[in-house]
């Protein structure tokens, strides 16, 4: 088994320490748009990163394979590709595959190969669980089991592009100017170690859930132990990873609405809860009792995205900056206002939410093709799985 930690956290620190800039754009009409403003906006915050990591998540880019999982896999070694492909082909129907197109860029040093595979699980492989669970299994198998391979992203009709370099460099390298998506998130990274590794850049993802994050999660130690209890292997040892898994556990597996997920991660202070009226008061007390180990403490600002939705969230006492603006159809979230105004000087709305108060952006229902179908009721199977503490 390979040790991802040695790649991402080579010095075995408690976690990877980093700071950064975040920027996100959601076209609320669900129209696919160019990422050009996103590149300009994130590169305007160059001082917040240090050139050792940049990345993007883009939604709506593979409409021709909208029903297929798009696995974007990074290879440090061509042999690893053979191994991955033979693993995948045994378990999935691969509808298409190609090397992710790149452009020669001087600033990019020793890039890995990145391939993408559009696939669906084959019948007969792990039929007892959902397709999502099977894809997650494959991601974990590859990431942990196959040397020199790492899955960047695994959602449908979306992709994560990331690497070592300033974000604008990464965008140029992956020719992101040629893509159009309705939701873009971007991250500029300031890691404290130099052995930055392409897989360690943000966004972090699982299925179509992606997270970009600024800050340090001081509660990482307990968040991680709680998640491990639920079967998540925090192999990258970075605090951002736990954000992705918390959302996956609560929103996907436990099917809690996003409004509760954000209240679990950044709950109101007890004294505020005590002032609330019933039944809200009791509900929040219950949330804090049950999910106390998922309170995300310490300075953070993050954008969590999946199809049709992005959520900006701050820690409870807003120790990291986060601003939001709406201009025309677009909702922007940014570490700095200047970046929003740079790409959209005339905003219809601008605000900077209080700590723990999420910025929720959704594609308007009149463009339902983007949306995942409304969440199904929890099936009996799922219930059984949940009760058994179903492991991913």
């Amino acid at each position, binding site marked *: 088994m390979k040790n991802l930690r040695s790649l991402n956290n080579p*010095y075995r*620190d*408690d976690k990877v*320490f*980093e*700071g*950064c*800039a975040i920027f996100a754009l959601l076209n609320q009409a669900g129209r696919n748009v160019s990422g050009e403003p996103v590149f300009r906006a994130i590169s305007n915050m160059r*001082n*917040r*990163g*240090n050139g050792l990591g940049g990345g993007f998540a883009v939604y709506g880019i593979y409409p021709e394979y909208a029903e297929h999982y798009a696995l974007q896999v990074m290879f440090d070694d061509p042999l690893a590709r053979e191994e991955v492909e033979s693993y995948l082909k045994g378990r999935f129907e691969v509808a298409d595959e190609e090397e992710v197109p790149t452009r020669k860029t001087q600033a990019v040093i020793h890039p890995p190969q990145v391939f993408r595979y559009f696939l669906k699980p084959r019948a007969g492989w792990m039929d007892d669980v959902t397709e999502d669970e099977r894809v997650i299994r494959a991601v974990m198998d590859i990431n942990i089991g196959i040397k020199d391979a790492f899955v960047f992203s695994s959602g449908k009709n979306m992709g994560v592009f990331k690497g070592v370099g300033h974000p604008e460099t990464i965008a140029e390298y992956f020719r992101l100017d040629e893509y159009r998506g309705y939701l873009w998130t971007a991250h500029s990274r*300031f*890691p*404290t*170690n*130099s*052995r930055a590794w392409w897989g360690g850049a943000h966004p972090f993802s699982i299925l179509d859930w992606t997270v970009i994050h*600024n*800050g*340090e999660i001081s509660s990482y130690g307990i968040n991680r132990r709680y998640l491990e209890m639920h079967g998540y292997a925090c192999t990258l040892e970075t605090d951002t990873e736990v954000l992705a898994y918390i959302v996956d556990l609560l929103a996907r597996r436990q099917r809690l609405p996003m409004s509760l997920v954000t209240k679990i991660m950044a709950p109101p202070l007890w004294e505020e809860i005590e002032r609330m009226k019933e039944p809200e008061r009791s509900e929040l007390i219950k949330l804090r009792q049950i999910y106390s180990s998922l309170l995300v403490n310490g*300075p953070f600002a993050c954008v969590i995205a999946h199809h049709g939705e992005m959520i900006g969230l701050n820690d409870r006492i807003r*120790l*990291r900056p986060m601003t939001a603006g709406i201009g025309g159809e677009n909702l922007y979230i940014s570490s700095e206002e200047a970046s929003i105004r740079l790409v959209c000087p005339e905003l219809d709305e601008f605000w900077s939410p209080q700590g723990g108060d999420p910025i929720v952006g959704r594609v308007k229902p009149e463009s339902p093709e983007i949306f995942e179908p409304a969440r199904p009721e929890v099936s009996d199977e799922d219930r059984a799985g949940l009760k058994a503490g179903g492991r991913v």
Partner: protein
Amino acid sequence: MKSYLPPEFIVERREDRCIRCLTCVRQCGFETHVYDAEENSLLSREELCVGCLRCVTLCPTRALTVRTNPSESRPNANWTREHLRDVCRQAESGGVILTGSGNDKPIRSYWDHLFLNASQVTNPSIDPLREPMELRTYLGRKPDALEPGEGRARESECPNVRIETPLLFSAMSFGAISLQAMQSLARAASEYGTLFNTGEGGLPAELVDYGKVAIVQCASGRFGVNWEYLNNSAIVEIKIGQGAKPGIGGHLPGEKVLAKVAETRMIPVGTDALSPAPQHDIYSIEDLSMLIYALKEATSYRKPISVKIAAVHNAAAIASGMVRAGADMIVIDGIRGGTGAAPKLIRDHVGIPIELALAAVDTRLREEGIRNWASLVAAGGFRSAADVIKAIALGADAVYLGTAALVAMGCTICQKCYTGICNWGICTNRPELAKRLNPDVAARRLVKLLRGWSLDIKEILGGMGVNAIESLRGNRLQLRGVGLEEWELRVLGVKGAGE
């Protein structure tokens, strides 16, 4: 309410030697000694005695002895006298126990488990008394190469500061220490060719001429920080943390904020000078970078910018981030570092020893190829030149001396700095007490200490067969460990003795 606390010390007065000169009465700021004129007798209110030995030292007939109160409750290895006292103090006050100075617990001193090398046969030792022996050190970022290429630091962006010995005086703020004490440090630094540190209390008007040898701090309280202060300096230091109290701020009580302190800190007389725990413009590594460059902008890129942190668990990763954030000098202050006031619990339990942190930081910066980007200064309880030499061999460019400098001036480490009363005139602002420290005397003693330790360093260098401090810096082959576990040797990056 009657206190259940027994006196910590007892005062013994030999009647046959006491001449009733009343020096003890006059010298005790804690008012331990009382003269009864009617009886012509001297009494001791021992519960007030802090064991600073001022009276003992000044008693002209050596009539006084102060010692730990020998009264013992039932011996108990778990419930020590200290634990009993602390519970009692908190039961009586309901507050946080304050203390001063550095950690007094028997934390393993790795210095005592590291041994130095000397030349024998295969190379000659050098006689430092007659042959040249160079201790000069430059603090600041060094360019990657003489002809820097694309993307590297340009020489013009690498201001460096010269010191003649790798010994710096650590940060002690005016307000916490007396003007006289700060003056003594400034004068000694100037005379010996090294630097003192203003701490976060500003630079008193009297010491403006010593700006050239001042490391001026910019800390969370921003006391006394303005353009003149930043630019009248050798180095500007951002203080994030302090070894004695990682993670918490400072608190100079209002009663210590007298006119002169108020003027220097630029706050009204009598208000508490609170230094928040964090700098509120630094909540993340990129914010540190922001302040570093704010200071570089404000000083037109002419001053090295130092960043000081307490030695904590992830010091290596943090230090690497600090260097990448633009710090030209980084300071790591270990768990034995001193303070004017800190909650006792934090002083004694938060942080890690400087030896391990220093080694880890130096190793990390070298692994990442960025050791040259910043000078590395170690701080926290250096007791002798031997500790200093070992720190330099582990990787430090220089060390900060705090407690040692105070002791040279007279401090007996009674740990009552936080009371504002210091019988030795060091850690006080009461004029009648502060004048007990004569800067002429104290500066002279400090210079002698610097000279003595520098000579010690030269002797050891000579014995190792090198004649410049840079040949010792980071040269861990000159160290061997004894009595250390495998992991400790690994972190320190030294071999076991005999290996």
